[in-house]
């Protein structure tokens, strides 16, 4: 009786009971060390990775950048139009080429330089992965990469154009946001608001052009994926006002298959664009996909790890 009325003893008893209660629990927990480790592990930030196989979706970019210290050699080829028929071997008799190098300065910042046979264009860009899609401890729905590029047309030569064509006239600029979400392991979708400024334009074009691109990929197997990419240019000139096909402009549409093998990514494409700088395929595509002026093409990349990751 006293035991339960005296405050001191009450406290002692409580402690004792608590101890007796806890001891079997502790013994139980000890049996499963792995369960204890799992309980002890904190929730981490899980970044989405491999949203796309390569740095290119079709003609344009994906949110992917090169990893620090890795160099990608990209070899892009666009044949003539399939509508050329058997005489042109369905376009295979002609080809336009872009040869480029992409280098990862950091895991999020890449720099590139390339040469494109269309208009003998040199182009370069910086590509910066600003935000990454993540789940777990920190959640963010999309990966956002910003691209700033510049292209310089070497063609035509000065004397062909007569006097008046200055260096600045050959330049064009691209500012682009790439916004992608990897919805599932097999499905990724990307939006590409794009701004292009051309210093010199044809009479029916405007200097500043805005386009919205969208596209995505569906993985068929671990190494093979189907891709699609479409750029809608809001400032395309009206084709009804011109007769010469040279001045006609269409939006670019691309369908492709990505095949990845080790350090290579092969992308086989069907597209109506032949130019491979943003200026060329977003603002100067002269072929109409739906009229059958489709070109077969491919992008092949090879990645070299120049600096070892520590």
């Amino acid at each position: 009786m006293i035991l339960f009325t005296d405050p001191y003893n009450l406290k002692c008893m409580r402690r004792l009971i608590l101890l007796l209660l806890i001891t079997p629990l502790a013994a139980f927990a000890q049996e499963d060390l792995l369960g204890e480790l799992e309980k002890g592990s904190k929730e981490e930030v899980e970044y989405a990775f491999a949203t796309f196989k390569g740095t290119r979706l079709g003609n344009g970019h994906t949110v992917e950048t090169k990893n620090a210290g890795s160099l990608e050699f990209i070899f892009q080829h666009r044949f003539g139009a399939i509508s050329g028929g058997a005489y042109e071997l369905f376009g295979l008799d002609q080809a336009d080429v872009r040869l480029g190098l992409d280098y990862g300065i950091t895991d999020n910042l890449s720099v590139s330089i390339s040469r494109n046979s269309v208009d003998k264009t040199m182009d370069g860009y910086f590509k910066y992965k600003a935000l990454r899609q993540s789940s777990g401890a920190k959640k963010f729905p999309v990966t956002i990469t910003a691209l700033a590029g510049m292209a310089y047309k070497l063609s035509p030569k000065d004397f062909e154009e007569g006097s008046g064509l200055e260096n600045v006239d050959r330049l064009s600029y691209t500012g682009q946001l790439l916004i992608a979400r990897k919805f599932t392991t097999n499905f990724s979708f990307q939006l590409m608001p794009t701004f292009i400024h051309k210093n010199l334009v044809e009479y029916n074009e405007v200097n500043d052009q805005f386009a919205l691109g969208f596209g995505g990929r569906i993985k068929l197997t671990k190494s093979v994926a189907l891709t699609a990419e479409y750029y809608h240019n809001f400032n395309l000139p009206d084709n009804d006002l011109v007769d010469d096909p040279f001045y006609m402009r269409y939006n670019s549409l691309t369908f492709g298959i990505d095949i990845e093998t080790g350090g290579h990514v092969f992308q086989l494409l069907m597209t109506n664009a032949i130019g491979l700088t943003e200026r060329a395929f977003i603002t100067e595509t002269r072929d109409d996909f739906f009229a059958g002026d489709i070109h077969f093409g491919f992008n092949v990349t090879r990645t070299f790890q120049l600096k070892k990751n520590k």
Partner: protein
Amino acid sequence: MWILLLSPSDIQTFNLSLMIFFKKLFFPFFLLISIHSYSQQRFFAEKATVSFFSDGVVEDISAANEKVTSIFDAVSGEVAYLMNVKDFQFPNKLMQVHFNEKYMETEKYPKSSFQGKISGFSLTASGKQEVKATGKLTIHGVTQNIDVPGTVEVNGNRLSVKSKFVVKLLDYNIKVPQIVWQNIAQQVEVTIDFVYRPL
């Protein structure tokens, strides 16, 4: 009600004797509890690396995970480790992406673990002791019973546990795409290197 008839000093004496009685009664329990906690001898890994290596026809593949957590009970010999597969670091980052995306399917199976028992060692022995570990190894969502050799070495209050064993990819349902089969061996050599300190 008779309590109320007693003087305060009487109550105090009575309580004191009662406390002593209870202490005597429960002493074996206290002893048991302290023995129990002593017998735990829990060790936590302060440095734990799991790495693997494979000879490829074209290039060797190696990676290390230094963010492994592990507990070792030196009395029962029970041991467990747990890691995030994404924490494997490769010299070649592209390989790291492929490892996670194509082979380990990290989004689906984020963790890899081992739970088992180390037998054949003494905490008081000096030098390297050859031991055996048996238990369940979980990789790529597949659990297999393994039985592997290793060593335990006691250095002061630190305990170093090492092991090297071969993991066959097919046992864990890890499929290497046909197109790159030449590049990747069908088995890898796993190295365990843990240093434990007492809890």
